[in-house]
């Protein structure tokens, strides 16, 4: 009889423990799923933003190419003229064109997104200070 009583007492609280355990597991998994999805979306949004900015710069560069007279005045002795349009912070679209001898026609010799930001190679953390 004593054994029976002990079994009954041991069972009380077990279901609550299981609920707490499963609840915590679900909550952690849900938080991880939400965080991953949010980060993915943020990355996608930044990609979309960058693409939109690039094509905005592309359109600006096309507008600049219309004014051939102004560009021709900027040419060096080899007939090259260049300009750049900002894409995003730290990036710009660099364009270089080469005019023919008459100055009426040109060939695009460079159409490149270049990095203008400074690269900081020292990314170390002060974890251990040298004595």
């Amino acid at each position, binding site marked *: 009889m004593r054994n029976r009583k002990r079994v009954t007492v041991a069972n009380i609280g077990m279901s609550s423990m299981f609920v707490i355990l499963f609840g915590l597991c679900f909550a952690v998994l849900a938080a991880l799923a939400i965080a991953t999805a949010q980060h*993915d979306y943020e990355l996608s949004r930044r990609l979309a933003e960058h693409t939109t900015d690039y094509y905005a710069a592309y359109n600006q560069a096309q507008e600049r190419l219309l004014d051939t007279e102004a560009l021709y005045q900027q040419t060096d002795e080899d007939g090259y003229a260049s300009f750049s349009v900002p894409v995003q912070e730290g990036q710009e679209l660099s364009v270089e064109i080469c005019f023919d001898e008459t100055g009426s026609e040109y060939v695009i010799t460079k159409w490149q997104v270049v990095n203008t930001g400074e690269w900081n190679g020292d990314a170390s953390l002060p974890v251990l200070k040298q004595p």
Partner: protein
Amino acid sequence: MMRQRESNGAKLFLTELMFSIFFFAVIAAICVQLFSGAHTRSVHSKELVQSVNLASNVAEYYTVWDWEEESWQKVFPEGEWQGDVWQASFDESWEPCEESGEYLLQMEVVNGDEYREAYIAITEIETERVIYELAIKRVV
């Protein structure tokens, strides 16, 4: 006396089980909503990436080919011109399809004096939600 104690223990156990099931149901309902939200976010994220890639591909093709019909037909045989608007349908896995699919890619070409401008938009057909749009100019 002993039977009464056992009966009380069983009642207590059943009451606790009932509360546990209730709380489990509440937690499960909240978590299912969170999982559902994460799934929706993930689907939107995938749609956005696919749309951006598709729009930039079409924009690059446009910069090279302008609107030569033969060249467009080679790459997008399912696409068709309707006046100044070129459109192509894509199914749920973003494969081109001839019949109306899940997504619609449209490119409207506007002729200007100095530029020819193309507006590229990708929409979800069912909800008519514009997922991504892009404008690109080309000197005539």
